């Protein structure tokens, strides 16, 4: 398959996903509702003044990534689960090549994740009156962390889509896949808030993303093909 054909297939999947989402607004509404609810709850309970300055850089990055994680997991796993639930997976299996299909779905999940971050992070910074000493590093943490979150969720969605007990399986499989990502992302966000040198955390996060990309591209055809 030529690169242009491959790219055209992936683009077709990405466009189809967005077209469906903009009409049903399932993920966007879920994200919006979940994100605003958790942000307001957290800000009321732990508002700007309730944390000692020394605790803020430790606690708030964890809180931010927990909000992002749980909001994302409310919508991202639908990528392949939805295809099985609506029986569209048969047509998709008969028409799509595994590689472009996975990339199209993952790109859609990444776009959703970045949209989620664009909604949550500014609100989070305002509600907690949080100053970020190194905004560039925070952007990198959000981009690389969001990439891993989107990719990992897409892979787990493919893994669980044909299984029973998907909710339980998603949690069980996500733990080993997303836990290292979250730890690196939280650490990098903390360093960005403090303005400290990132050390090897950036390399670790990027290496994790690269490993997850390679593993996903190798695993998905095995998962997808009967």
């Amino acid at each position, binding site marked *: 398959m030529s690169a242009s054909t491959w790219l055209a297939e992936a683009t077709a*999947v990405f466009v189809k996903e967005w077209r469906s989402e903009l009409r049903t607004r399932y993920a966007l509404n879920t994200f919006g509702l979940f994100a605003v609810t958790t942000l307001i709850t957290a800000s009321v309970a732990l508002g700007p003044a309730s944390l000692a300055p020394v605790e803020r850089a430790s606690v708030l990055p964890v809180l931010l990534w927990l909000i992002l994680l749980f909001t994302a997991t409310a919508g991202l796993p639908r990528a392949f689960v939805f295809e099985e639930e609506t029986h569209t997976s048969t047509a998709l*299996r008969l028409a799509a090549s595994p590689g472009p299909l996975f990339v199209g779905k993952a790109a859609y999940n990444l776009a959703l994740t970045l949209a989620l971050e664009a909604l949550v992070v500014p609100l989070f910074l305002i509600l907690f009156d949080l100053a970020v000493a190194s905004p560039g590093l925070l952007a990198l943490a959000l981009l690389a962390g969001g990439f891993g979150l989107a990719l990992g969720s897409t892979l787990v969605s493919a893994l669980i889509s044909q299984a029973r007990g998907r909710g339980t399986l998603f949690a069980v499989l996500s733990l080993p896949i997303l836990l290292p990502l979250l730890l690196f992302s939280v650490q990098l966000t903390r360093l960005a808030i403090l303005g400290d040198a990132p050390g090897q955390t950036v390399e670790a996060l990027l290496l994790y993303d690269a490993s997850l990309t390679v593993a996903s591209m190798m695993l998905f055809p095995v998962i997808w093909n009967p």
Partner: protein
Amino acid sequence: MSARLSFSGISRRFGRKRVLEQVAGAVEIGQVLAVSGANGSGKSTLLRILAGLMPASSGTIEYRLEDRLLDSGERRRALGYVAPDLALYESLTVVENLRFFARLRGLPASAADDAVARVGLAPEAFYGTLSSGQRQRLRWAWALLGRPRLLLLDEPFQNLDAAGEALARRLLDEHLENGCAVVASPITLELPKVHERIHLAG
């Protein structure tokens, strides 16, 4: 042009239950292979195996197109498939659905427009609003995208009214000029150019 599907020794078990046992058959251009049997006899399972949607417990399947043997992935993407469990996207229109799948198969948008026109559906109707008979027409249009040489048809006239069935039969006739088909049905259908019949006892 040439296309030939042949299979032999196809067996399939679900746990301890044997659904298919040593099924064999072949079909080539201009021919129909008719598969019949009661509900639960394994007709749909056989077609899913032939389509590459489900692995057989044992047996071999060969699909040669222009004298080239296709692997299971290539076979999946090179055939047309009509079956009750085939659904398209409810939030997309008829033509958007077909254009999406046309792009996945490397076909121009005009192939999708042509397929919609052949089955007489309103292009801008949403799949979610179609009746069961209209959905069956759309399955036919989907199967004929890019005019594949091989059609696997599982209960191809299900839910169709008289006009719809006449249309589907005409499409099958046209297809058989340059292609072949495996047709599964619980009743013995009157079909053109039947080369071989397989009855599954279940």
